[in-house]
């Protein structure tokens, strides 16, 4: 009997500690994550003037829809997302395949690929600003040396977003490559051996073994990347001040930031945040559905 009591007391004590931690986590999460979200939803239907907060219905939504910057920001964000997927999804995948195929020096190359991730984003951005300088930048010097036409890079509305994507891809490639590499290494070696015995070259092995075996994880990562890239802020903000030439790099999150912190218009900022939240929630739903299939 005494032994049971001791065991029960111990269990209670253990559970109390666990619940203590749990309550702390739930409180923190609730206060810092969920409460702001609820406040955001409330504020998207409110306006504050001269210290008085009033309910304005859908006026804030109407205001952001009237703002020419709204559609421009969405166009830019979608362009960034498409370009980031073209560069940021394909390039790390190809690099991962190459690393996976290598027999020698794989570890060193893996470190080299991952190195840019360790550099603080601000330092990377400064580096690229020097590279992109149309007057004296490294890229234009290289192009000129190769007798190729130079570019205005961040200084032209036509090339600013592509330049941002290239920099962002370089900055984030290491992490994505490692994830793809882990997925590739999960493919049983026998499949490649069988393909090799059947006379399949590198491209055929990739097409008939690698791609089918990683299709699901690739589609999940693709969705994750869409959700992440649609929230892009840091790279355009640091490289072009947020707007870029003629607003060519203005993104939705930057517009939210402008409404809130430049214009003190929390209602419009919240309304735009809500629009984005709903859109990304749709993508997240798709993600959850796919992940169920993965299980």
């Amino acid at each position: 009997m005494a032994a049971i009591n001791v065991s029960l007391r111990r269990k209670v004590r253990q559970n109390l500690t666990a619940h203590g931690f749990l309550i702390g986590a739930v409180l923190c999460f609730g206060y810092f994550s969920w409460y702001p979200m609820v406040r955001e939803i409330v504020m998207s239907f409110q306006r504050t003037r001269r210290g008085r907060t009033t309910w304005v219905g859908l006026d804030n939504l109407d205001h952001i829809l009237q703002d020419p910057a709204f559609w421009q920001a969405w166009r830019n964000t979608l362009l960034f997302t498409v370009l980031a997927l073209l560069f940021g999804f394909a390039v790390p995948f190809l690099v991962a395949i190459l690393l996976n195929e290598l027999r020698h020096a794989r570890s060193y190359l893996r470190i080299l690929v991952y190195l840019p991730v360790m550099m603080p984003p601000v330092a990377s951005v400064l580096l690229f600003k020097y590279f992109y300088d149309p007057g004296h930048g490294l890229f234009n010097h290289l192009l000129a040396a190769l007798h190729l036409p130079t570019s205005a890079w961040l200084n032209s509305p036509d090339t600013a977003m592509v330049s941002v994507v290239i920099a962002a891809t370089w900055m984030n490639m290491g992490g994505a490559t490692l994830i793809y590499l882990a997925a590739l290494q999960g493919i049983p070696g026998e499949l490649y051996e069988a393909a090799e015995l059947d006379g399949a070259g590198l491209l055929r092995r990739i097409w008939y073994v690698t791609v089918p075996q990683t299709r699901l994880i690739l589609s999940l990562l693709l969705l994750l990347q869409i959700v992440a890239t649609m929230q892009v802020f840091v790279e355009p903000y640091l490289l072009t001040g947020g707007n870029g030439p003629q607003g060519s790099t203005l993104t939705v999150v930057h517009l939210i930031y402008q409404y809130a912190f430049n214009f003190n218009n929390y209602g419009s900022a919240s309304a735009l945040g809500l629009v984005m939240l709903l859109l990304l929630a749709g993508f997240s739903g798709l993600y959850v559905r796919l992940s169920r299939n993965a299980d």
Partner: protein
Amino acid sequence: MNTDLFLHRSVALAAAAGLALSVAACSGSASGSGSSKDGAGSSVSATLDPAAKVTISIDCEPPVTKTAERKQWAEDIAAFNRLYPNVTINSKDASPCEEPAPFTAQLKGRTQTDVFYTYFTDLGQVLDEGQAEDITPYVNETTVPALKDIDPSVLATLKADGKLYGLPTSNYRMGLLYNRKLFTRAGLDPDKPPATWDEVRAAARKLAALGNGVNGYGDYSATNQGGWHYTAELYGLGGAMVSEDGKKAAFNTPEGRQVLQNLYDMRWTDNSMGATQGLKWPDLMTRMASDKLGMYVGAPDDITYMVQTLKGNYADYGMGPMPGGKSALLGGNDYMFKKGSSPDQIKAGIAWINFKYLTLGKGQFDYARTKADNLPVGLPQPFFFTGASLAGDNRAKAASATVPVQNYAPYLATSVPGRTEPANAQQIYKVLDNPVSAVLTDRNANVSKLLSDAETQVNQVLASLQ
């Protein structure tokens, strides 16, 4: 990966979308320093009762890295406390004194100090949040003896509906900053800076001809600063940004087009502005301090930044009046008083501001001390006094000058009336960034269409604010 993990991640990612704008919602409830409630001497018409025990919190104390300024702050508080021993000042250091995003969040959360630092352009925002006390009944020639000599256009920036909400501590009037060393090298007279845009353009061509990456003229075109400088240059030509009633854009005029055309011509016809555009603060200062830029529109405190932070030399920089000379954009900073402050707190705050920032020979105007502390004396700033106070200030400044004041003679000799920024300036500036960046980055830019589009957008912005 299991489903739960996916779910958690997706929820977290979705949550992140709204997080950026929801931060302010985390802020706590209103906080106040320990302060006396209305007690002895709380009548608004009276000056601060020396017997009243008051505690006020004030921001913008110089940070520990600014050793001399910090020491002066402590000395001034000690001296103030000899006059008002019952006032306790709780200082909060900051550098910079105000950053827009945290300031906005502070207002939203009512966590600013009792006496808080703002820019002239913040009044509308502070009033929208209901966060400033009307100090009109407390400010008179007894509490602020130099009041009659403060430039009315400066005080006007701190008024709304006839009520006064703040007291100025510093201000500037924009002009043309130039690199005297490059002027000499280009064969230009460093004592005669250009006064018109035609002269600016001609000088810029000569400066750019120096080569080696030197640009004749530079301008901002990002982070709303393109619109800010557009406004300054438009004012110089006599134009206006918005109509008298503030309801319509007023910049689509010959003057407005001239501002963009000047920039276009210097960038593409003369090639005197260089290929790197999209500049934002402090890019122009960095370029001038490294002798790669000849001229730009700026304020006198840019010189301090170029010398103290970028290690330039005072002797290398000069300042002339705003090209065009019709009027010059003015700006600056001030202190306001938190809503809910007691009368004694407001009186104590005004007494401190008067002591530290508005009394000749004291606080920021103690030039002998400033000189002894190796800080610059002689820059044409602050610039809010007129009449006898201005004359007295100029005499005191000249007696302790540590910088070459003759370099700013062209700026001081030409009287250009000050003009404040338009209401809701940042939203208008954001729109104007586009045409400015367009003429600097697009050889095929159509000035008239750019300005016409900007006018439509600004009218939309103004309509939404009615």
